[in-house]
């Protein structure tokens, strides 16, 4: 058993989870799966520089050996970019939901599933419904966070 083996194992697990999730038919797990895959890829790229403990690439006159800074620089921007990509994808899936009225990854609609959920139909945006809607949904962000 070695640290390298453990890192390889965790990358393997993250790839597995990511692959399984992006094969799901709903858009949300697909986005989560892609996030997983980007973790895995980032860690993989990072590991290309070799695993070193206690040798950060911060120059110091007393220190002579450093870990490889280049993969770190690559991964740093990759993390930020993959956030941008995740955000774009999730918004794309919202847009798809709006345009296609489904969150199926291929845009398929299974009508039978619709009746199970109390979706507000478009026509309900009328005035009599409004007060309740205002109260109920503005609080939603905090509510999810609880």
């Amino acid at each position: 058993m070695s640290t390298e083996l453990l890192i390889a194992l965790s990358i393997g697990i993250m790839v597995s989870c990511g692959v399984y999730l992006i094969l799901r038919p709903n858009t949300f797990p697909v986005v989560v799966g892609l996030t997983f895959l980007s973790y895995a890829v980032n860690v993989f790229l990072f590991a290309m520089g070799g695993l070193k403990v206690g040798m950060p690439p911060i120059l110091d006159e007393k220190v002579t050996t450093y870990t490889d800074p280049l993969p770190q620089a690559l991964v740093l921007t990759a993390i930020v970019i993959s956030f941008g990509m995740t955000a774009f994808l999730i918004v794309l899936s919202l847009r798809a939901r709006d345009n296609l009225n489904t969150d199926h990854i291929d845009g398929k609609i299974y009508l039978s599933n619709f009746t199970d959920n109390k979706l507000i139909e478009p026509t309900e945006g009328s005035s009599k419904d409004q007060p309740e809607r205002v109260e109920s949904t503005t609080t939603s962000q905090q509510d999810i966070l609880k």
Partner: protein
Amino acid sequence: MTLVDFNLPVVVLLPFLGALLATQAARFNRLAAAGTAAVITILALILLLPALPLPFAGQTLIQRWEWVPSLGLEFAFRLDGLGLLFALLILVIGLLVIIYARYYLSPQDSMGRFFAFLLSFMGSMLGIVLSENLIQLVIFWELTSLSSFLLISYWYTRSDARQGARMALTITGMGGLALFGGVLILGHIVGSFNLTEVLAASSLIHASPWYTPMLVLILLGAFTKSAQFPFHFWLPHAMAAPTPVSAYLHSATMVKAGIFLLVRLFPVLSGTPEWHWLVGTAGMLTLLLGAFTALFKHDIKGLLAYSTISHLGLITLLLGIGSPLAVVAALFHIINHATFKASLFMVAGIVDHETGTRDMRRVNGLMKYMPQVGILAIIASAAMAGVPLLNGFLSKEMFFDQTVSVSAISPLAWVIPVLATLAGVFSVAYSARFVHDIFFNGEPINLPKKPHEPPLYMKIPVGLLVLACIAVGVFPVYTIAGVLYVAIAGALQTTPPEYSLALWHGFSAPLLMSFIALVVGLIVYLIRKPLFAWYDRGLSQWDARIVYQALVNGLIHWAQSVTRRLDRGTFRNMLIWFFGVTLLAGVVGFWDEALLGTRELMPVDGITAMAIAGLILSSLLTVLKHRSRLISLVMLGVVGLVVSLGFAKFSAPDLALTQLSVEIVTVVLLMLALYFLPQYTHMLSSHKRHYQDIAWAMGLGFSAALLTLAVLTRDLQSISGYFLAHSKTGGGGTNVVNVILVDFRGFDTLGEIVVLALAGLGIVALLQGIKLYAPKRNAEGVPWSQESHPLILQVQARILFPMMLMVAIFIFLRGHNLPGGGFIAGLIAALAIVLQNLANGIVWTAARIRWDMHSVLAAGIGIATFTGLGAMLMHYPFLTSTFTYLKWPIVGKFEIASAMGFDTGVFLVVVGATVMILVQLGRLNYIETEDTGDLQPAKGSTP
């Protein structure tokens, strides 16, 4: 610095600027667009003036700036006699076309669009003829293809216009690609892409084994552009363009670009059997085919189109003959053809404009209605037919003379003058038809409009061109001789041969050929009725377009069938292809390699083992619980946290900080989105599919683990020694990761922040006008909490805000030397703002943080770019950084690097993009629940 140090690029780029101005001018007054175009053209002519004497003094003006020296790419312009001749043709005929088009376009046509396209086309053409660097020439070449596509499809509601434009773009675009290949080979042979060096390397080029492929590729480019057989068929279809466009594209510019290229490279490409055969044959076939077909076209513009093809063939044939005198004739004919063909197209436009049709079977007897136009048309057609005392006669005589002289080289070459005379016969016949059918030949038949004289300003351009035809035809020595002489010198890159522009050379073979052409041509026209019938019975079906269509359709069908086989229209299917190929690549790559290396490995410590166990556990939970989205999301957050701990453990403090802050932002983002996504899970089609998915996941995970092990157990070779050694001395920072980001690889980072900014803007665009219907209750039917923003969170967030910003600034400032920097600081600052939005509501926050995030984004990219450009001002490459040490009282000595400015840009973009994304998504709640009516900038109250 005088004007001749930099005027050429200005002349070339001015029309592009004018294109923008024209669209703006058209907003105020549609005629202002035409005025702008005319003024820009005149301005370009004036700017060209100071350089004019140079070619006459035997000098070549070259203006160059470095662009990408490592690729041999220079921003370089050249003016010699040849470039001058073409630039003058482009600008002068362009000006006439602009005046003409001002009266030609109807009130429904958008003037701004027309003149913007026309000017960008003019700029691209000028770019071709004034380029010194061949790659730059190719870029302008492609630009002419694109702008001519836009011009031809100007009436984009008409399907023939769209088809014609597509065809022109396909053919000339493919030619452009071939040309690019040819130019690359040429540059490779010579070792430079600059014309000065290329033109001096004739023997080197001829001796190269790459000569023939290079020649073929360049000829493909030239032939497609100049509509040479077998690529000629796009030109008649491009007649769907407005007539001013045809007058411009098919007389002086677009189609002459190919000819220009042949002449430009004539000194180094010609003189080989390959050149004679390829160029000569294509020219001869095009000449005959064009002249023959033109006679049978009933559409006026169709006749002119084929006539253009035939004249282009004539010029190409002359170049194929390849003697210096043939080049003289070719250049002379280029000028003459431009003048008479532009005026004839304009006449065709006038007839179309005044009668409503271009069908010569109906348009007859117009002499009575528009005698002035009639006279102009007669003179121009006579020039086209090669009637003495007009310019076309002179160059045609030269042409005949060349065919006669070339007939001596081999026993079979006697056909060349014979075929040339035959082409002359048809040329006379269709010219006669143009005049007789339109202006005489009885009365007009069933015209949509009653014809009358056109506006004066439509006739003036025609009149000026016809005047030029006569002036050149009668007094060649006093009019055209000077420009022609320098053009020939420029084309041949040597002293021009002896030639005579005299009208009378005594009784000679060329005169006899001209005479035969005139007489027989008129006879052919007299017996046209049976000829038309004969043509309609069979030959009219023959059209290269059919072959083209079949090819295109075949290609499309083939592409479709391949696509259908690969892509079943499901995401899963595409993924499986991707996974499969990835696996295959791994297997092939390791086929005869030992999988694992022999490096010494690192022993495991307890904490690492526990953390990784946590990571694996939470990963599995994310998947197992993926139907309960919230739990799944929390588990995802845990995975991210462990990853960032791992970065911290393995000597990557910057990554740990970045991952940590990104993790928080990601989870908030996904939660906001989760609210709008349905809670149910779609059913899979079968259990079998589920097992397949699991198998793929395990297989790929296993392979990824193996791959990681394979790398980690091998010895590493790294290039980062350079970065470590130069980070402090060259970049002025001790945090090597940050110095790499903002200095060594600053250009990459610039690209990355642009991507981030685009993602943010894309998200804003995607969320425009979105209407999502969120549930009032959660999946279990429990209504969402009624409580608005919780007080404790509100208060805490407000207190935290300044502190978070301070941390961000701290992290930012130390970034160059210690872990931190623009990316991380940007994320922290963004989190501070996002927290306010979450705790106090978007409206409350928007009233307090008034910066528009679009401007923050723009400022960020602007600052980053200008920091880079600042280096260029000091004559360093883009994004070179510098640093110095400052001493302040109290603070003491500290370092300031220009990279800091760049990092500020990074910071702003990260803040802008992150906040924009989250706030836009959060805003959906308000839009959706309050019908947007209440989403006014609130006066400090929470909704």
